[in-house]
């Protein structure tokens, strides 16, 4: 009876971190697939710093950091496309420029903050154990919007992830879909800023889908595995953090990196032919040209 009461009280205490791990992890797992397949991993860093800069701006201006980080993420994601196209730059270069602007703004904001900067620093590291009810609701809402978009525009998203030029050529409104992918990636990062932290979120966006990418040739399986890996990393990280009293965000990232390392070892995409298959053989009749 005492055991049951203990579990019940632990669940009461931990339901918010557990919910944040599940919903936040799932959102990162899904948007991470887009980032990995579009080969723009730097987007994760840029967005996380945009969210961080936004949150610092929120603290400075006295508005909810979650709202201001969303605004910064949306602005950054909407800037990436036009900057890339109008300045004729590689997406990586324009991401680097926006990243540096956001980093500059974040540090400027920290410099201007009066009093202790604990709140701002918490946004760098995050703390899943201190997540509030509102933040959990924001994570649920973000995941619901992302999954709804994916369900409604599954084929359009797949085409854009395959090749943007082909998507445009077959008559898909490729640019709005691409911008929506950037926007939702930014939203997922902003929503997770309090739980994982601005610096560490990048790994949770890239590691689980990269691990999934190693293990499957199917897009739907990649989404599923990426989500499972991201949620698993969060839950295991949370458990280890609770048991050993270590920072949760850092453990989550280490777990997700370990999952990636294991998937790399098990990857069927990297399997090599057995040596006996490569031994010299005589030419068959249809291989002869003499």
């Amino acid at each position: 009876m005492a055991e049951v009461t203990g579990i019940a009280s632990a669940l009461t205490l931990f339901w918010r971190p557990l919910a944040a791990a599940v919903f936040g992890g799932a959102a990162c797992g899904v948007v991470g697939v887009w980032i990995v397949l579009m080969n723009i991993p730097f987007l994760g860093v840029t967005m996380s710093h945009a969210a961080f800069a936004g949150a610092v701006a929120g603290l400075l201006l006295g508005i909810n950091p979650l709202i201001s980080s969303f605004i910064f993420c949306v602005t950054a994601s909407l800037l990436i496309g036009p900057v890339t196209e109008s300045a004729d730059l590689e997406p990586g270069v324009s991401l680097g420029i926006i990243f540096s602007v956001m980093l500059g703004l974040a540090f400027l904001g920290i410099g201007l903050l009066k009093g202790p900067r604990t709140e701002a620093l918490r946004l760098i590291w995050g703390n899943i154990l201190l997540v509030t009810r509102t933040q959990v609701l924001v994570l649920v809402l973000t995941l619901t919007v992302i999954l709804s978009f994916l369900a409604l525009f599954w084929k359009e998203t797949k085409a854009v992830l395959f090749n943007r030029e082909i998507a445009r050529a077959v008559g898909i409104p490729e640019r709005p879909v691409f911008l929506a992918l950037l926007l939702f990636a930014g939203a997922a990062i902003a929503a997770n800023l309090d739980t994982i932290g601005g610096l560490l979120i990048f790994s949770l966006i890239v590691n689980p889908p990269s691990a999934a990418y190693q293990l499957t040739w199917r897009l739907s399986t990649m989404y599923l595995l990426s989500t499972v890996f991201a949620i698993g990393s969060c839950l295991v990280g949370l458990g280890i953090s609770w048991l050993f009293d270590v920072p949760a965000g850092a453990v989550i990232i280490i777990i997700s990196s370990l999952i990636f390392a294991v998937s790399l070892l098990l990857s069927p995409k990297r399997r090599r032919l057995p040596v006996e298959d490569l031994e010299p053989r005589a030419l068959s009749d249809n291989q002869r040209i003499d």
Partner: protein
Amino acid sequence: MSCAVSIKRVSVSYRDHIALRDVSLEIHNGEFLGIIGPNGAGKTTLLTVINGLGRIHTGSIHIFGQPVLPAKFWRLRPRIGYVPQQLNVDPRAPISCYESVLIGRYGRIGLLSRPSKYDRQQTEEMLRLTGTFHLRNRPAGQVSGGEARKLAIARALVQEPEILLLDEPTSNLDPAAARDITSLIVEAYRRFHLTVVMVSHQPEHLPEPCNRIAMMKNTRIAFVGPREQALRAERLSLLYKTTGAEQSACGFEQTPATPQRTSAQLPPGEPWQK
């Protein structure tokens, strides 16, 4: 014969580089038009202008009699199949050849709808037509150059296009693979009554049904006319700055009676024949 594509005085520039200058061209319904010219002549840009992927600086384009407006062009695109010269597909991308061809249907299907049985049947039919049905479950990035071209053609055909744009479909292929692709294009042209525009810098790869050829040089159309006039050796030597021996090697007839002109006599962009 009605006009499928009408291009009037179109110019395209990328920053300070002019890619097309004052180009006018009419392509008729059911026509097989070849576009030849040296590298950098503007052939690919002309194709991208027709399918709305390239932005025009001046001039106007009408497709099926409708003026082309960039904001609304995506509605017209499903009617135009496009086979790009090269398609970079991640070799480990989690998408099969079948799915990569089915993408061609997506524009026709429209937003918020799923591929129907008919869409899947069409995809399988085009995979069979292009001889790539056996590749359907293979990852799209794990095919040879020739197979990738056939899949790109299958993807364009599955759109059920009225116009098919082909950008160097036989470049970098061995002779047998190039022949395969050429016969496939001819079969598709005849079977689906298409309007075909095929770009090539190898005139010998333009198949028999191609009876009109536009020759491009220095961002302009220098000549448009019947195949037999376009493929005369002296005209080709002016276009490509090649020797008679090189033309003979490609199987083009020499007409020594015609006075030879050199490119030095031809100011850049000046039409050779109106």
